[in-house]
């Protein structure tokens, strides 16, 4: 019996070793519309949605990894949809360099080890030419050395400042980091003549990076700063402490699932003053939970999610939103959809500029980008290096609707 079991075990190990390449790559993308995700291992399988490109040409393979399950699954899935939409559009307009584009996905479950195995799998098993990366900054830091070693360009969605300063040659940021948002917040503060700033931030890489950015901004004085555990829902201690300080405005740096309760509790505990935040406030679920309490909240973000596509002030974003709704049946659940869309755009553009998908050539092409229009604005890597966009925008809530700040 034991021998049989041992033999079974050994064969199991062998089987997985020799590689069942069928299972290796994709997860079924969660969407209502059609998608372009395919089993990406065999290059003999053509992409499913090609029109103009030759069906015989070897496809360009984009890899994607992000938190498709776990606490940040909503953001992760929105990120994936953004990439999927861009890939679909690329295929509809002739692909990259005349070749169809495939998207292979992997779930990093918000865990660094899974991020690392995802990237390794994408590179080794699926032979990706470039990667649209995750939104968790520590996971980008963990996987950056691997893409560097393998010369596979990767764009990342995380806003933590650190990973762009670690000297990695093959990663770029497809959105603005927390410094940019902090600078925009500073502008709002100065315009309203608010000088005493209180900060309430989430105690993880996202919130802590934001708090640091705020502290680092010249001309802003952070008078009081408190933090909360992302899993916690009772912020009364921190809030009461903050209220004891003489504050003109409170800045909140947290993610969707905490911002709602935080905003509610701030108002419930008696804070009537201004609240200012970052892209966490773009999440529809914050409005769902906080309701009228978001009225008057100002936030810094490159983009936001409107109640309907037509309401968005910028035309290119409106077009994106309309296509998104057509494809997936609803508006994005998180602004990460914008980020990945831009990221895929950047990769595709660089490949066209370089005339090849060779990693090192694409790297040089990205580093030469200046003046590329995306949903976020104008990308410039030539001066920014790893950071393509270094400013942000301000918005505010009127009731439960978002309007550009100052209007």
């Amino acid at each position, binding site marked *: 019996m034991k021998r049989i079991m041992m033999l079974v075990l050994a064969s199991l190990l062998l089987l997985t070793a020799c590689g069942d390449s069928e299972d290796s790559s994709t997860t079924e993308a969660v969407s209502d519309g059609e998608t372009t995700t395919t089993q990406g291992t065999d290059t003999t399988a053509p992409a499913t949605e090609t029109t103009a490109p030759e069906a015989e040409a070897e496809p360009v393979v984009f890899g994607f990894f992000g938190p498709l399950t776990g606490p940040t699954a*909503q953001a992760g899935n929105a990120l994936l949809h953004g990439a999927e939409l861009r890939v679909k559009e690329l295929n509809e307009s002739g692909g990259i360099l005349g070749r169809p584009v495939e998207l292979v996905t992997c779930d990093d479950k918000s865990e660094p080890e899974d991020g690392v195995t995802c990237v390794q799998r994408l590179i080794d098993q699926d032979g990706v030419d470039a990667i649209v990366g995750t939104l968790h900054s520590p996971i980008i830091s963990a996987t950056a050395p691997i893409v560097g070693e393998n010369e596979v360009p990767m764009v990342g969605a995380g806003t933590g400042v650190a990973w762009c300063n670690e000297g990695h040659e093959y990663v770029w940021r497809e959105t603005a980091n927390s410094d940019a948002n902090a600078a925009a917040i500073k502008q709002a503060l100065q315009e309203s003549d608010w000088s005493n700033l209180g900060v309430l931030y989430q105690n993880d890489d996202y919130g802590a990076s934001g708090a640091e950015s705020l502290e680092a901004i010249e001309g802003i004085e952070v008078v009081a700063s408190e933090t909360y555990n992302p*899993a916690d829902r009772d912020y009364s*201690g921190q809030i009461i*402490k903050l209220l004891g300080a003489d504050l003109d405005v409170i800045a909140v740096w947290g993610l969707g*699932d905490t911002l709602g309760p935080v905003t509610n509790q701030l108002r419930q505990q008696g804070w009537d003053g201004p609240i200012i935040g970052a892209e966490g406030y773009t999440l529809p679920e914050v409005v769902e939970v906080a309701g009228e309490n978001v009225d008057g909240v100002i936030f810094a973000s490159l983009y936001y999610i409107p109640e309907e596509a037509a309401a968005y002030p910028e035309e290119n974003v409106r077009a994106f939103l309309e296509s998104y709704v057509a494809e997936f049946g609803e508006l994005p659940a998180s602004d990460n959809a914008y980020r990945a869309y831009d990221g895929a755009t950047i990769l595709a553009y660089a490949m066209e500029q370089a005339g090849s998908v060779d990693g090192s050539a694409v790297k040089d092409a990205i580093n030469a980008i200046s003046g590329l229009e995306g949903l976020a604005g104008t990308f410039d890597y030539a001066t920014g290096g790893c950071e393509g966009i270094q400013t942000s925008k301000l918005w505010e809530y009127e009731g439960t609707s978002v309007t550009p700040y100052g209007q």
Partner: protein
Amino acid sequence: MEAFVRLVIAGLMAGSVYALVGLSFSFVYKGTNLINWAQGEWFMLGGFVGFTVLEVFHFPFWSAIVIAAIVIFLAGFGVYRLLVHRMVQRGAKLLDVLLATIGLSILLQNVAMLIWGTSVRSVPPLLKGTLSLGAIIVPRQYMIIFFTTVVAVALLYTFMQRTDFGTAMRAAADNPYAARVVGIPEHLVNATTWGIGAAIAGIAGVMVAPIFGAYFFLGLTVGIKGFAAAVVGGFGRPYGALAGGLILGVVETLGAAYISSAWKDGFAMAVLVLFLLLRPHGLFRAEAFD
């Protein structure tokens, strides 16, 4: 000074939540000599049932409490009948049931995630607005929570000491064989105990949902702190859970405000660890050793 008072009040509110969950742990332990690790998840599910009743069906708040209590009672009862009963009959000990219910808590978390999604769900409060006592502002919902906790503790204590069922429960726990001899349907009693314990946690979940929101991950931290509250107070003692919970809540809130908010969870854990190392019997003395 007002800050201190407000902090203590806020701590008492959070502590009441831990007390209720701790109560559910203690109640189940007292009645069946077993521990259900998933009490935190009953709390979490209570919040979601409340959300469904209030936001999907638009029934009034009191009905949310009743419905949540019934639904979660049935769930707890069911867990005992389907799982624990079988394990106990095969000779499982406390540790085995503990480990199995760890699996149960993971299962319930994920089922909740599948049913209600990963976003936070909000619930409108029963009592809106705040109460002002001078400069001290207290959200009205806090009062309800605190009130419920005290009432629950008193009710449960009376129930266990003064009613027939409570006596039957204690008898079954003390000496199952003798209980059976006397004609007490031991397993029915135990299943009901588990159901009541679950319902207590579920009701707490509904009460707190307007402040915390309903979220699938909530059961984890609240469960551990609830368990800690029960231990600190003396495992198996209802008023122990109350005391333990309030202490934990106040310590953690004051610690967050006066020492460091980054370490907030650490304070609760530190209190727990200190008690376990120095006074494992808890405040009101219970069995702690092998």
